[in-house]
């Protein structure tokens, strides 16, 4: 398979006439804007019933009584599922065989461990009957006091944070570094619990046929969901067929199958009919994950030139009482700024909440807003411009590990964004800028970064004798346009025009495409697609170069180019023939090839791989009222090869707007006594509206990275949040002179 290798190393060269790099619009856009896209909850198999969750209104205790009779007596109610009659499972939902197996609440007992935990499921002929049936259950509880807030329980050092990284890490001697410093700062920042709030609630439509399961449900990880469901029900994974053609957002909350989705499957088993279960908005505040609150203290020391002598980042966070996910906020300090001494540590409390989970830029987002705020404080303490300070502390190698970067165009990001923004005229001191209407105006910046991750994926490619191609991979499109980007990679991989390629994804019956998360989906599934294309082209080239009737005879695989549905001799492009001719002469209706995508362990050892960016923000603050508006955002990002600039830009926009949201809007307000979330709806859980983001600009900075993968792809899905949140906070300081230390920034913090 020498051809695959050579293609891998020079994808651009071998795949001319490229679809990659074109700003195509979303291929599913038309379906979506016309309402024709069928989301999970739009399915209605014949005979389907509606299931509605009854959820706990207490945070901790047990369900002492449920009025099942009243619910069952309600017209249209077919069955009520409680711990007493819930069908048996093959696995304990509280088992944790590996760190990514999160414990699920599947009516295994009468215990309540967080508000909005499922305590029963009512199944009825109509949604209305099921809803009323759930209300009629009128649960009675034995209530225990709720543990609420970061001071609500005893803290401990977790065994691992994030995906299992060490909770405590250091290099060099931080205390000595601080002691030797000329200037020091210390500051504590708080970030609240946040909820993913994808537009589309978690929904599932389930039909059992014997031991075979047919499921429509949004998933960011079809194969993982398939495996988890198979394990819980003791059936073969290939008997679990999940379709997830469209997701209305996921942001991490649909990465793993959640308890309510499995309850939908159990409900269908119990009643022996297809069942639909859709979460209500407020029911999404508990069982499907969230971003945990943090309290972070940063200490920095700087020498006389503004160089860091020490960087200490301590983060306190919270997990549930029954499972482990610890927001790795302090790890944000591992990768950005050079310092001879760096220490990061985490401690945590266990609260009566649902288990926190991955939420867009988990750890990176929370850590970034604190780190970038502290860097701003440090720059000011040294009397330096924040950009100059960041350049002074620019990391030429990854600070924590000393590894070289596989690529890092951050200087160029700083330069382009600063120039576009007009940063150079910024006064050093705060509260000096006013606009024509008298608003306090402030400029702030932040550095963005996100690791370039890859997971495991497979793809299958087919070339047909009519000259067309097929590319199959069970990839997931959360709405970001992944399938368009994948189709572009597929077209280039097959050397075909994009319209000649039938791209298939979004089903667990297709090859495992890994998870759409960690900003690694395009790189991972993209490489699988690319390699599958290379494999099938290699087979085709074998046929042609070994066939004396072919003009390519004797060229050898290395001597062949694939382009526009034809193979050409590399040394003489006038000699070539079409795929159709080659296959027809060989008497084959189609040939196939397989490819995988995975990180390269060798380069993983050698290089630190990250995407980078720089974000500049302008805010206006009403001097009397403290109301804030972000009037301008300019970001520049370098994240390797751009498959589709339109889609990449929209990821940056979305991430940057999320950063605004983090700094100014988002917060789950929890009652300090009951532990119940008070704003579990989209009227009161604020995210930015259009008027909050009048001008957002994202610049794509060219970056070649030969090490991350053959296509040179990093990830763009999450990085936009990092940097931006801090930039907004720093701009607020620059406008007002008040340093935001808790987020979201509130009006009362600025009233003075």
């Amino acid at each position, binding site marked *: 398979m020498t051809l695959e290798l050579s293609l891998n190393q020079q994808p651009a060269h071998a795949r001319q006439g490229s679809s990659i790099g074109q700003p195509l619009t979303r291929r599913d856009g038309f379906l979506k804007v016309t309402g024709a896209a069928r989301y999970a909850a739009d399915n209605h198999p014949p005979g389907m019933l509606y299931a509605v969750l009854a959820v706990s*209104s207490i945070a901790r205790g047990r369900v002492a009584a449920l009025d099942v009779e009243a619910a069952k007596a309600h017209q249209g109610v077919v069955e009520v599922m409680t711990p007493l009659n819930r069908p048996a499972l093959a696995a304990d939902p509280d088992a944790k065989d590996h760190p990514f197996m999160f414990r699920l609440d599947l009516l295994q007992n009468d215990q309540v461990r967080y508000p909005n935990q499922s305590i029963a499921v009512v199944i009825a002929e109509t949604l209305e009957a099921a809803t009323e049936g759930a209300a009629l259950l009128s649960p009675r509880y034995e209530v225990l006091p709720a543990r609420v807030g970061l001071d609500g329980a005893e803290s401990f050092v977790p065994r691992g944070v994030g995906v299992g990284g060490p909770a405590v890490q250091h290099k060099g001697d931080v205390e000595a570094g601080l002691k030797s410093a000329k200037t020091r700062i210390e500051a504590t920042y708080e970030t609240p619990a946040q909820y993913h709030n994808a537009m589309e609630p978690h929904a599932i439509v389930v039909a059992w046929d014997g031991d075979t399961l047919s499921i429509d449900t949004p998933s960011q990880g079809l194969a993982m969901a398939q495996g988890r469901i198979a394990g819980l029900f003791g059936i073969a994974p290939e008997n679990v067929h999940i379709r997830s053609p469209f997701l209305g957002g996921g942001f991490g909350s649909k990465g793993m199958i959640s308890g309510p989705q499995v309850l939908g499957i159990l409900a269908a088993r119990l009643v022996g009919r297809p069942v639909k279960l859709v979460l209500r908005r407020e029911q999404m505040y508990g069982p499907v994950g969230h971003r945990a609150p943090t309290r972070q203290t940063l200490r920095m020391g700087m020498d006389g030139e503004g160089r860091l002598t020490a960087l200490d980042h301590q983060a306190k966070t919270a997990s549930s009482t029954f499972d482990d996910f610890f927001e790795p906020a302090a790890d944000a300090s591992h990768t950005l700024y050079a310092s001879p001494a760096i220490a990061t540590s985490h401690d945590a409390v266990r609260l009566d909440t649902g288990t926190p989970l991955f939420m867009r830029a988990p750890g990176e987002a929370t850590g970034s807003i604190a780190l970038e705020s502290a860097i701003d404080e440090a720059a000011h303490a040294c009397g330096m411009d924040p950009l100059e300070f960041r350049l002074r502390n620019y990391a030429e190698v990854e600070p924590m590990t000393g590894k070289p970067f596989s690529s890092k165009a951050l200087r160029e990001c700083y330069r382009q964004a600063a120039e576009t923004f007009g940063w150079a005229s910024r006064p050093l001191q705060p509260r000096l800028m006013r606009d024509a209407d008298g*608003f306090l105006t402030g400029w702030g910046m932040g550095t963005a970064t996100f690791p370039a991750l890859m997971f495991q994926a497979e793809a299958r490619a087919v070339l047909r004798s009519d000259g067309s191609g097929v590319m199959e991979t069970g990839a997931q499109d959360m709405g970001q346009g992944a399938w368009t980007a994948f189709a572009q990679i597929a077209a280039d991989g097959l050397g075909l025009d994009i319209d000649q390629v039938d791209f298939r994804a979004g089903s667990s019956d297709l090859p495992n495409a890994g998870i759409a998360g960690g900003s690694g989906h395009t790189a991972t599934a993209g490489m699988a697609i690319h390699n599958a294309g290379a494999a099938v082209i290699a087979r085709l080239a074998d046929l042609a170069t070994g066939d004396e009737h072919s003009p390519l005879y004797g060229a050898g695989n290395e001597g062949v180019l694939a382009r526009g549905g034809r193979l050409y001799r590399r040394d003489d492009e006038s000699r070539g023939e079409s795929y159709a001719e080659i296959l027809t002469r060989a008497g084959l209706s189609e040939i196939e090839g397989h490819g995988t995508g995975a990180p390269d362990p060798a380069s993983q050892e050698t290089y630190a791989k990250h995407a980078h960016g720089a974000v500049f923000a302008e805010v206006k603050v009403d001097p009397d009222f403290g109301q804030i508006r972000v*009037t301008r955002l300019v970001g520049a990002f370098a994240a390797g090869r751009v498959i589709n600039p339109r889609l990449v830009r929209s990821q940056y926009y979305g991430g940057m707007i999320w950063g605004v949201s983090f700094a*100014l809007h988002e917060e789950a307000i929890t009652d300090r006594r009951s532990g119940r979330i008070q704003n579990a709806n989209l009227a009161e859980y604020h995210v930015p*509206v259009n008027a909050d983001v009048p001008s957002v600009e994202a610049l794509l900075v060219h970056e070649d990275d030969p090490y991350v993968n053959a296509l040179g792809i990093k990830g763009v899905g999450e990085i936009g949040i990092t940097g931006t949140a801090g930039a907004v906070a720093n701009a607020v300081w620059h406008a007002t002179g008040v340093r935001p230390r808790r987020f979201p920034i509130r*009006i009362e913090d600025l009233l003075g």
Partner: protein
Amino acid sequence: MRDFDYIRPATIPDAIAAAAEPGSAYLAGGTNLLDLMKGGITSPERIVDISRLPELSRIERLDDGGLRIGALVRNADLAYDPAFAKSYPAVAEALLSGASAQLRNAATVGGNLLQRTRCSYFYDTASACNRREPGAGCDALGGENRLHAVLGWSDACIATHPSDFCVPLVALDAVVEIEGKKGRRHVTLEEFHRLPGETPQRENALEPGDLIVAVRLPAEAASFSANARYLKVRERTSYAFAIVSAAAALVVDGGKIRAARLALGGVAAKPWRARTAEAVLLGADASEATFASAADAALADASPSGDNAFKIELARRIVVRALMSALSGTPERLPALPASPFSNIPGARHDA
């Protein structure tokens, strides 16, 4: 949700007769009622859909120079009525600062007056709430209450009335026209909503079956059109309820205030007419110093009901600014961000 009867009466008397039965509720735009029903906060047994009663959708000029706005006029239709916006600019501005375009297209005049508080404990049926369940207690006290009332609250209830529309209306002496079993009567908006006292569940002057048929603005209300503003501070630039808002309307002649109207929103269980402040303004110099004294007078009786002391100082500042903007004159066109402190951002390309 609970099953209920749905009735669509053809006439006002039929509607009133139907709604007089216990457990009935009128349905207008439904933007508040349906949310409350879905959440189990209210569970009417009978819905009387008035949304197609024809007589209630008219805006009429009255012979005495006043205006009569039918209870079913949509919030958006009213705000975009050019004659209305010209005569009562602060009311149009308040309307357009509320909710979202979609909600304003559905929400009605009557429904806006009668929308319930946004107190989260009122919406959370697992919490104690005197307003929802008399005598149950008030979980907002000692809870998450930074947006609760600073004026007119009681230990029984510290909730606020969330309407924007009502704030300039109460300032302009609007009158609510009610039709009930005993015929038609008029109640000033100022008296229409009640402070909680010991009976927060009694939110307004309506008796069972009473239908709001119209809201009237007296002739005098239009005399403020050259100097009337609504100002609303909120936690995002649009689509958020007021933390505090104020409507200010002035008639100024030779630097002296000849007439003044002031009301606050988001501070009490009713749109808060600041009469003592108006007394300070009347006859005084139209100056920032006068406005500051008026603001002090308006907030003299304010006290925090929880973590919300900041609202008092904020309200003071909003009063001063609202009066200053009113003094500087009603803008020619409604700003692109109605009632927002940021409404003057240069480069905004649209009218509201």
